[in-house]
């Protein structure tokens, strides 16, 4: 592997680390305050991608209009925030005292419902989003194309990290969030309305997930399998970064994103006598359809990642 292709893979990894960080930051923020691990976080991410697709289409983001995509991303974050708040109020409020098992299972129920809602609204086909105006081209370094959009994503994650850090360290809301992460009971005793706080934190985390989904859309098509695919990665990132720690999630997202990209670039890995073809675990439940795509790690594929499209998901494999 040449240095330039290594750099290309590194950029690829960092770009996916960027959206992974947005998702994990929301997950870890929610866990820090409410102590709930939210399976449905991946669904909010998926919904963000679909909403950005539809709103982007309505706003003309496909005709290279300048701001359509960004409005679509904001709309996706807003829709996810509202849905996150609804999930919190409707489902999780009753479960804060319940064992983890019930909480995780309940949020999985939400995953199933959201997936079928997405199926009913957007259908089983993959939906590839618009190229972002102004970031549609690639920068060529030593013959390797580095998509401009990946470079943009690279800048977004640190910006979000700074914004979240400022929010948590410098505002009254952040003060309350930190206090609740330390000691929920005492925070309640000091006259903070926990119920509203939890809903607000859930909405914030959900908005981050929705935003991440929207920002992923120009790189990967929105599809019905992306909820569980991303939640597994996000769990790993949040645990690795320390549950509840946003800077930890940032570092862990970079570690996971880059490791994954490099493993994919390395292709086959020999362990003893056995040779594994390393593929992205991103493909989750319907991975067979990713095979011919270079996003899956097949070195034979020469198509550029953003041009890759999955084959329509077969109905038989869709039934888990």
């Amino acid at each position: 592997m040449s240095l330039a292709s290594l750099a290309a893979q590194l950029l690829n990894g960092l770009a996916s680390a960027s959206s992974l960080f947005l998702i994990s930051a929301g997950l870890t923020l929610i866990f820090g305050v409410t102590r709930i691990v939210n399976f449905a976080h991946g669904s909010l991410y998926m919904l963000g991608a679909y909403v950005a697709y539809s709103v982007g289409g309505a706003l003309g983001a496909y005709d290279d209009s300048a701001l359509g995509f960004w409005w679509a991303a904001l709309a996706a974050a807003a829709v996810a925030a509202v849905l996150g708040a609804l999930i919190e109020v409707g489902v999780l409020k009753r479960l804060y005292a319940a064992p983890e098992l019930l909480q995780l299972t309940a949020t999985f129920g939400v995953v199933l419902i959201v997936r079928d809602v997405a199926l009913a609204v957007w259908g089983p086909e993959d939906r590839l989003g618009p190229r972002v105006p102004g970031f549609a081209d690639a920068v060529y370094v030593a013959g390797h194309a580095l998509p401009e959009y990946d470079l943009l994503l690279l800048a977004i994650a640190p910006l979000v990290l700074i914004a979240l850090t400022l929010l948590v360290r410098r505002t009254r809301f952040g003060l309350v969030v930190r206090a609740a992460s330390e000691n929920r009971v005492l925070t309640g005793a000091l006259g903070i309305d926990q119920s509203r706080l939890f809903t607000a934190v859930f909405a914030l985390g959900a908005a981050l997930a929705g935003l991440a989904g929207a920002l992923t859309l120009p790189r990967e098509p929105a599809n019905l399998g992306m909820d569980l695919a991303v939640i597994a990665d996000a769990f790993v990132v949040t645990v690795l970064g320390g549950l509840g720690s946003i800077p930890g999630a940032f570092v862990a997202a970079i570690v996971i994103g880059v490791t994954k990209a490099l493993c994919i670039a390395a292709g086959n890995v020999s362990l003893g006598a056995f040779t594994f073809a390393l593929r992205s675990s991103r493909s989750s439940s319907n991975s067979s359809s990713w095979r011919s795509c270079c996003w899956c790690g097949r070195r034979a594929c020469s198509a550029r990642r953003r041009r890759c499209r999955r084959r329509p998901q077969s109905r038989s494999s869709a039934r888990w």
Partner: protein
Amino acid sequence: MTRPSRGHAIAAGVVIAFALLLPLAGDEYALVLAIDILIAALFTGSLTLISGTGGITSFGHAAYFGIGAYASALAATHGYPFLGSLALAPIAATVAALAFGALCVRLSGIYLAMLTLAFAQIVWSIALQWDAVTGGSNGIIGVWPPDWLAGRTGYYTAVLGVVTLALGALAIIAFTPFGYALRGGRDSALRASASGIDVKARRMQALAIAGGFAGLAGALYAFSKGGIAPDALAIPRSVDALVMMLLGGQNALFGPLLGAAAFTWLTDALGRATEYWRACVGVVILLIVSAFPYGIGGALAVLRPRFRRT
């Protein structure tokens, strides 16, 4: 959980008698569904031992199911006899459970749930990516029971026998001193170890037993479907087991059977009735969790004394 009583034995006898009469109805599809229910009941029963009795939250129980299924399917396709392949499944799953238990037995709560989930994901990706051995996303096909069990009725009877014995064993294990030691560790690990119970060792043994029974369920599944694919050990199957356990009641003796029967029948009926059966299952999950956290079995246990009084 109430101790097994004569009433339970009679109820079990009635259920088994009905189950034995089922092939006489001559409905091929009912048999297929019944085999699914029995296998799901064994799978759920094994989870109930560690999760309900032992308090070990497992979010990746499908891993043992899948390991058992793959072990027996591989053995069968490499020419091992049926009974040998079937016996290999619990052994492989027990070994996996012991290896993984060594890592996770210290943990509790959310970290345990996450780690079991991660373990299941690792096993799932190995099954998916090790094309040469596991057949990748296509899985292994051509795994059928031998001629003397070839008919639907024959295989159904065999599954009924194996599952009855296995569920009976699980019910007995839950009320041995070992089972009580597990409960002690679940309710108060500190107090249990102060009274001389080696909580970690008991948990390891419970994991090994549960893993073995889950593996057996996996092998029965592989032979009933004629093959095995990676989605048999994906996250949704682990959640299926949890839902069936919650549906039946974590601490009800007949919980696994009730939960498996209700859930399997429900998903089958919904799957045939509507394209959006997943959302219906999701609504059912939310209902169980928020309204009936003790499941059907728990609801029955609450209702029974009321009926007696009146």
